């Protein structure tokens, strides 16, 4: 990249021409230096495309790293908390990775493409950390972020759409499975993954075929009521599905300046991602200590009374502050008022009754509401179609 060239300005994804044509609202945001739409035509209609038909999201700016070589599995197994040896070829695993203090640096998805061949998709930039972790391992690490264009196709008619596009046999793909198709001389990788909690797939392709893929997808999807969606709709869907967002629901450990602001996987409700029976992995010793001594915080999903989202609320117990809300939304499909909270231990056990201190403004007047809320054990949205093999037509 030449100094001072245009390449240092906002970047465009390989789908940009199509995205821009569809983005009637011109409501642009940025993601990792790329221009990406917050909404195309109407945030709510886009959200409902995800929940009722099929929605398409351009996730090309996602950080993607390719890890290959004889020690690829061993290296990743040392880095992440999950047991990578249990993620077979053709499978994808959601995982987190920690620093030595057992604090979550990031979460992401690990694609097992072939024997000792992995792709890691990460929220934060991770090339430097990958190289640290690779010390002493025989692996090659490549930043593929710009070499792979990607679209998420999410929603009840997503499978029908992709079948209509000619992806034969896709209905047999299990959740977190991945498979390959040939597409106009390129390989199209399809994984049954996503960030919406619904039935959905992600399509991965070389940038030069990106526009063609978009066109084929939308042509095939028309009878299945396909629509592009922006980051606002995605955010609502992921809150409804109970998914954490790095940088929102936790501070990536290496970017936390103030002590005590980062969180362990246990404190984020992600204990299920931690394989303590692995002999070594980053942060293991600290996590072992935490298990013995107890965590400082607990992640809680809250069902909040009333219809005012508990944005940035304090959570109270018997009048005292015991935590704060990191994400909140009125969820239109589940018809619930959901909040993600970080609570001080021992608070946050399922069933606990708490109070959210909510502030909202109408016509310049602020109102304070003390809304009762309770800790719930599972996300408010989790439809059977998300797991069904084969999925139904809608």
């Amino acid at each position, binding site marked *: 990249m030449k100094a001072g060239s245009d390449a240092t300005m906002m970047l465009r994804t390989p789908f940009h021409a199509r995205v821009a044509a569809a983005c009637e609202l011109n409501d642009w945001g940025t993601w990792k230096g790329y221009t990406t739409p917050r909404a195309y035509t109407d945030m709510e*209609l886009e959200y409902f495309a995800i929940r009722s038909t099929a929605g398409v999201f351009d996730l090309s700016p996602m950080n993607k790293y390719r890890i290959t070589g004889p020690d690829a599995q061993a290296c990743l197994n040392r880095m992440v908390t999950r047991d990578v040896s249990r993620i077979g070829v053709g499978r994808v695993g959601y995982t987190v990775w920690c620093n030595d203090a057992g604090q979550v640096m990031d979460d992401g998805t690990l694609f097992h493409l072939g024997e000792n061949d992995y792709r890691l998709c990460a929220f934060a930039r991770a090339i430097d950390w990958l190289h640290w972790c690779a010390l002493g391992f025989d692996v090659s690490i490549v930043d593929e972020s710009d070499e792979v264009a990607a679209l998420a196709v999410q929603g009840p008619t997503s499978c029908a759409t992709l079948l209509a596009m000619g992806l034969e046999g896709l209905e047999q793909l299990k959740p977190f499975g991945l498979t390959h198709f040939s597409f106009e001389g390129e390989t199209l990788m399809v994984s049954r993954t996503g960030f919406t909690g619904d039935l959905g797939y992600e399509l991965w392709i070389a940038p030069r075929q990106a526009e063609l893929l978009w066109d084929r997808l939308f042509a095939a999807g028309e009878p299945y009521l396909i629509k592009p969606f922006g980051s606002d709709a995605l955010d609502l869907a992921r809150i409804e599905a109970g998914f954490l967002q790095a940088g929102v629901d936790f501070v990536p450990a290496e970017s936390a300046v103030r002590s005590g602001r980062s969180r362990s996987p246990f404190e984020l409700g992600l204990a299920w991602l931690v394989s303590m029976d692995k002999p070594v992995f980053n942060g293991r010793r600290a996590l072992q200590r935490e298990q013995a001594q107890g965590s400082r915080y607990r992640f809680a999903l809250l069902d909040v009374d009333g219809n005012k989202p508990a944005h940035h609320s304090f959570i109270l117990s018997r009048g005292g502050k015991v935590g704060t809300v990191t994400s909140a939304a009125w969820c239109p499909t589940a018809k619930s008022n959901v909040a993600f909270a970080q609570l001080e231990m021992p608070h946050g056990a399922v069933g606990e009754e708490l109070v959210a201190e909510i502030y909202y403004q109408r016509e310049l007047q602020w109102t304070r509401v003390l809304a009762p809320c309770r800790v719930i054990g599972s996300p408010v949205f989790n439809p059977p179609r998300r797991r069904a093999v084969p999925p139904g037509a809608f």
Partner: protein
Amino acid sequence: MKKYDAIVIGAGHNGLTNAAYLAKSGLSVAVLERNPYIGGATVSRELYPGWTYSNCSYVCSLLRPEIARDLELPRHGLQVVPYGGGVTFKRDGDYYGNYYDHNRQYREVARHSLRDANAYERYATDVRKQTRLIRPYLLRRPPDPTSLKLRDLRDLAGFARSFTELGEEGLADTLRFWTKSVGDYLNEYFESDVIKAHLGGTGVIGTALGVYSPGTAYVLLHHYMGDMDGNVGSWGFARGGMGAVAAALAKSVKAFGGDIICDADVDRIVVRHGKVSGVALKNGNELPAGIVVSNLDPRRTFLDIMDRDDLPAELVHKAGNFKIRGSSGKLNIALDGLPTFNGLDRNNPLMLGDMHFTDSLERLERAYDDWKAGTWSKDPYVDMLIPTQTDPTMAPPGKHMMTVFVQYAPPRINGGEWTDADRAGFEQSVIDQIAAHSPDFKSLILHCETRTPREIEAEVGLTEGNIFQGELTFDQLLFNRPFPGYAQYRGPVPGMYMCGSGTHPGGGVMAAPGANAAREILRDLRLPDVVPGGYADD
């Protein structure tokens, strides 16, 4: 035969809501439905293979979110998807697009009248003031102004307070709003015919009144007072059709242990020793129960399924005079593809919304003249939507379903019964009107279900096919609904209650009458109140 604590007559959505709350409180409850299927006017059926029609109600906004959430209707399969916007096609080939996005809508109104575009903002604010006033009362029983009971006095004081908050001018506005015609009301704001026609249509939907009849401004408000996820006035589709509302409510009833019995035509509410003792079915069976709740409209409840001897004469008289006039019909159409409309791109979001072809109040009034003359409108007002543009479940991929609500259709034709030939004539007038704006429409029609007040009355049991179980005029609202002295869901006989749209706050797929009635029943039984009140409307 099983002895129930309570029997609800009619599995309309209000009967089901009522039963859900009674069952939730631990009562043994049965809902008795005359038809082989549930839902009443909240029903979806497959009458043409592969296509689901919402045979009566077709769009959703009034359904109280508090009830939907409390009864866990989403978990029981209900999803309501907003559609936003609408369009009125003009005879000159142009159209007015009522975009959901405010700035886009401003530009569009300005195309017809710059001044109206700006006036719309004032209009929207004024209507919001009125919805703010009424919304908190949807999930409450109306206070009885003649009662000296503490609870009524307290409710009345609260009612008075929200009115005085409006100030003198606001109060005057409110009274005007509740009594004025929608035509006069809109004339105060707008100059453009098409804007007035687009907005004015909702003032006559479901009522046997014209746009210049006093009281129709309130009917407009009735269509604005709902909300979709907090967006007041916005409307949506129940995924799978409106029958999904009834289906989810039925699951809720069953989850609480209630029974729903179809093909159970109730002949009569049985009264013994001055108290309700059960119901008698048309097939001769009798089901005992100490509480009987009627989901039927007030005419049917008091004149058809109760003995006159059991009722005060004055009540029989009131029921006879209750205004419940048929005014609407409906076409449900299976389409081979998405029709195109003059001047509108098929990807325009306006295609997702409500479509109309009446471009002036004058034409709306002429359509009403036909009703008065005892015939269907030759140039009808339609409220038409194509839900299969956002709902993949109601037609095969690439095919579509169209719902066309039609005003006006009188309960009788020139004093006689509707004949099949009349129905064909009615259908033709609607199809011709649509085809005049859509060149390919006729060639796409695969099947059409046409319902006049005759079919609506026969199948749903709504007297004269009146969609709201009684006119929504001021003399039949709040503490006057259905009649003064009977507005708190209690009938004239101990143990007898009403829970249909004929009670406060009236018609539409709202679930509020059913829930409010349950609250009163639980109160009489001295059981805890498990029925949610309204969310703070702010």
